């Protein structure tokens, strides 16, 4: 592009339109993160459902995989930053939304792991004990306080970043995925933990894995077009 040419008003307008269009068409969301977490959480939820429904155990906590997945996630973040030549305002907003989600998710996991024993101790300090009665035998059993239908809470918070991403990016698959998370959340209130896992599996596959694959497909097409 030369600089010395004296511009007319129409040419100025054309340059502005052309450059803004070039930024819009510079699509570089590879969908790797959505594919990774959609697969991992979807698989862990499905395995949890199968173990509970068919009464078998694989011998270890399948959710360890979600901790292991942090390693490829860190690589994805590092690789995206290395390859990135621009940062758009919507990307900055997305980063803020998903970082907030990760912090909230960590807080929820912490809460669910600690609240039972802490509550039990606090109740003991006030000379109280939580008991569960078997209505058939009349037997009373001491229990640790627990959060009812905790999987529903996960479905609820999965809906937040999914819907936010869908609305900000005007990306229909994620809007639909977010709506499905909300519907699964409501359904989970009426179902037991076993089926909550099944709902969780369906929700993350539809709201993260499938949109991630769609993004990946677009990204690959664009990369092939650039060659």
């Amino acid at each position, binding site marked *: 592009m030369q*600089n010395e040419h004296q511009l007319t*008003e129409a040419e*100025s307008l054309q340059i502005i339109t052309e450059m803004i269009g070039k*930024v819009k068409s510079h699509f570089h969301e590879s969908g790797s993160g959505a594919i990774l977490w959609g697969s991992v959480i979807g698989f862990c939820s499905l395995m949890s459902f199968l173990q509970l429904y068919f009464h078998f155990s694989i011998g270890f906590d399948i959710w360890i995989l979600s901790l292991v997945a942090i390693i490829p996630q860190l690589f994805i973040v590092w690789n995206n930053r*290395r390859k990135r030549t621009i940062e*758009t305002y919507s*990307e900055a907003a997305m980063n803020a939304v998903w970082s907030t989600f990760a912090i909230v998710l960590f807080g929820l996991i912490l809460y669910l792991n600690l609240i039972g024993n802490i509550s039990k101790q606090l109740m003991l300090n006030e000379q109280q004990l939580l008991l569960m009665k078997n209505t058939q035998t009349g037997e009373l059993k001491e229990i640790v306080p627990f959060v009812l239908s905790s999987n529903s809470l996960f479905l609820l918070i999965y809906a937040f970043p999914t819907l936010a991403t869908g609305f900000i990016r005007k990306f229909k698959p994620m809007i639909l995925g977010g709506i499905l998370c909300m519907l699964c959340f409501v359904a989970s209130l009426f179902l037991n933990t076993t089926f909550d896992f099944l709902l969780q599996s369906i929700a993350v596959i539809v709201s993260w894995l499938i949109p991630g694959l769609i993004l990946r497909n677009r990204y690959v097409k664009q990369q092939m077009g650039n060659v």
Partner: protein
Amino acid sequence: MFKDLDPILHSQLRLAVISLLISVKEADFSFIKEKTNATAGNLSVQIQKLKEAGYVEVEKKFSNNYPLTTCKITPKGIEAFETYVKALQEYLNAGKS
């Protein structure tokens, strides 16, 4: 009475750079070079002029041992661009009537 078009922006390459930067938070020198099809030397000179006018911020750093120049539009640059577009609209509307 028409407003004068900002001479800093009323140049093909500088206008192209600002038009790119208005829609992004920040962009690498290589991205701007690719989209404007400008030569590295010419682009450096024009970015320097935009920087001196206070319209862009330029950050130079190293990434994987390679120099990386990142450009970002400033609030003054956004204001100048908006004024430029308004003035342009006035000219074009006057041409129609």
